[in-house]
């Protein structure tokens, strides 16, 4: 076998693994759907139609994919340094809080200043919120996952507290903040069947930036060295603590930006519980996409489609939209035993080659 052939098989195997994981998850969900007496094909069809069938659905899917993709970037960044960032949800809520406060209370600024400033406030809030677990992890080696989960719970309660007792809109029936100033609202590209704002360009820019920084600079190289083999990186003189800190803090900033975009681009105010779990969507995407930004875009479109289409599915087929979290959980659980699936994928690929 020539060298080229082997590498071709390997890349096929690399694509095969996530596909196999998704297929197994789909099979599991289908069994579940049959168990509650629904037709899985009809359910998937109405899900697909809700997400891509109408122009309105399509636009909603694309605009929902922005915060999901940013969360995926945040998780992927931490994965690159060799840690697992599941605090994205909390950082996202905090970022939304920061940008909402900046959007409401900074008055009389021109849009060119106010809009980026509010986004920046969101990023800073997410970053500051990521600082606490990061410092505890780097300085005292506490279990990062446990602390992130606690911080996620904390962030939700804290944001409810701030909305209820500080920035509540008295005229609103639901728990929501005052509307943000018009100068802090992200302008829309399309408005008629559904709203699509310029955040999609911000996302593309950040994707390109991440690609350049991580694959073309020394900083990015040293950062991934920490993730590949921490001990080897330590012996070659790389300051592990600093890279771990930055990996998690930039992740926090990206999550904060995702929250800020939701506030400034979609709702124009901060709703309590506005995020249906964008931060958790990012986890399976980042873990499955093998740190490839393009795969992450595709993955977040798929997850956004699940989120948008599940409403349609709930109305048409009477299947609860919680099925999305079931899919998420199944994917993450399967990723934990990824190497067994990799082995299976390898057997499928090489058997075909030999035959």
């Amino acid at each position, binding site marked *: 076998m020539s060298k080229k052939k082997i590498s071709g098989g390997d890349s096929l195997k690399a694509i095969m693994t996530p596909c196999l994981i998704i297929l197994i998850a789909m099979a599991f969900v289908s069994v579940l759907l049959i168990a509650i007496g629904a037709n899985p094909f009809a359910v998937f069809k109405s899900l697909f139609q809700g997400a891509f069938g109408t122009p309105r659905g399509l636009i909603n899917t694309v605009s929902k994919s922005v915060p999901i993709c940013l969360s995926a970037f945040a998780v992927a960044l931490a994965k690159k340094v060799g840690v697992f960032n599941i605090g994205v949800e909390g950082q996202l809520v905090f970022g939304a809080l920061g940008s909402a406060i900046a959007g409401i209370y900074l008055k009389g600024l021109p849009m060119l200043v106010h809009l980026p400033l509010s986004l920046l406030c969101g990023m800073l809030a997410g970053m500051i919120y990521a600082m606490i677990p990061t410092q*505890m992890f780097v300085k005292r080696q506490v279990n990062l996952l446990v602390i992130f*989960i606690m911080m996620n719970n*904390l962030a939700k309660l*804290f944001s409810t507290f701030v909305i209820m007792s500080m920035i509540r809109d008295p005229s609103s029936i639901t728990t929501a903040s005052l509307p943000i100033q018009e100068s802090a609202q992200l302008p829309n590209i399309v408005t008629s069947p559904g709203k699509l704002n310029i955040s999609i360009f911000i996302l593309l820019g950040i994707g390109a930036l991440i690609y350049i920084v991580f694959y073309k600079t020394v900083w990015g190289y040293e950062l991934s060295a920490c993730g590949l083999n921490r001990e080897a990186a330590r012996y070659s003189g790389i300051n592990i603590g600093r890279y771990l800190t930055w990996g998690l803090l930039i992740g926090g900033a990206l999550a904060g930006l995702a929250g800020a975009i939701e506030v400034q681009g979609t709702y124009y105010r901060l709703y309590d519980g506005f995020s249906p779990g964008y931060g958790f969507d990012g986890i399976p995407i980042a873990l499955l996409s093998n740190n490839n930004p393009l795969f992450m875009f595709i993955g977040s479109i798929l997850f956004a489609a699940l989120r948008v289409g599940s409403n349609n599915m709930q109305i048409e087929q009477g299947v609860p939209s*919680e099925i999305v979290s*079931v899919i998420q*959980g*199944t994917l993450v659980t399967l990723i*934990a035993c990824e190497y067994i699936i990799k082995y299976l994928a390898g057997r499928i690929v090489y058997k075909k080659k030999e035959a």
Partner: protein
Amino acid sequence: MNGTLITTMLISVLRLTVPIVLMALGNMFSERAGIMNLGAEGMMISSAFGAVLGTYIFNNPWIGVLVAILCSMLVAGIHSVISVEFGGIQNISGLGLNMLAAGLTAFLCRALFATSISPTVKNLQTTNCLKRVPLIGDVLAQFSPLAYITVAIIGICWFVMSKTVFGMHVVAVGDDPRTAETAGIHVWRIRHFCVTVLCGALAGLAGAYLSIGQLSFFMEDMTNGKGMLAVIAVKMGRWTPKYIVGVALLFGFFDALQAQLQINNALNIAPELIQTLPYVAGIVTMFISSSSKENPRALRQPYVKNKYKF
């Protein structure tokens, strides 16, 4: 007035400690055998749902407890297959099971009962046969029978861990699986047993206590971080039953304090801020407890059978 307040507080502390203690003891076995179990939350929520479902179908809370134990054993079994048999990444497996169990219970609750809260079922909130005990009978009857089972379990756990050969084997497997295997201990059998049976059963009791021991219905996300508090309690309690109970009592105290402050509204603080109290307590506890030498040395390191090495 003050006397009754202290009594209510004390009862409330003990009541809220029960699920944390049960879950933490389950996790202790799992971690002592070298398997990190972050799926505690998922095991608890699935058994809380199982308890209500079993009671709803059979109209008997004890069968509900049994169903609860089976449900969490199923989740624990998946964790065990992934992390013991296949040597997968234990943290990710636990986390995935948390997400899966939370989603699946919410999904099934909606699908079966059409709301996010199940209908009320028979419960195990009080132990009426203890009412006849003189003087303190009224207080004793206020606890669920599961709470008395918990007291017995604490004793059994202490005995098993420090006085039996099995307890020594568990410690050996968690500290150095290779040496343990050389000494003729069945490493994988012990790990499977600790995770699936012991951790699963204790998590099942904890979840059943949450849904039919404290309340009489199931609610989405009703574990509310209690599983994670149990994980912290195990680490802070240095993997020994008596310290774990101490730390769990501390968490139970903060939980009770939070509940009482909300009911009495004594300090005039926003309820959301009061609700953060148990989480803050957990985070501060984690910060204080640094990694100790008693740490099971092979914790989180997969030990894979030869046939899976490729």
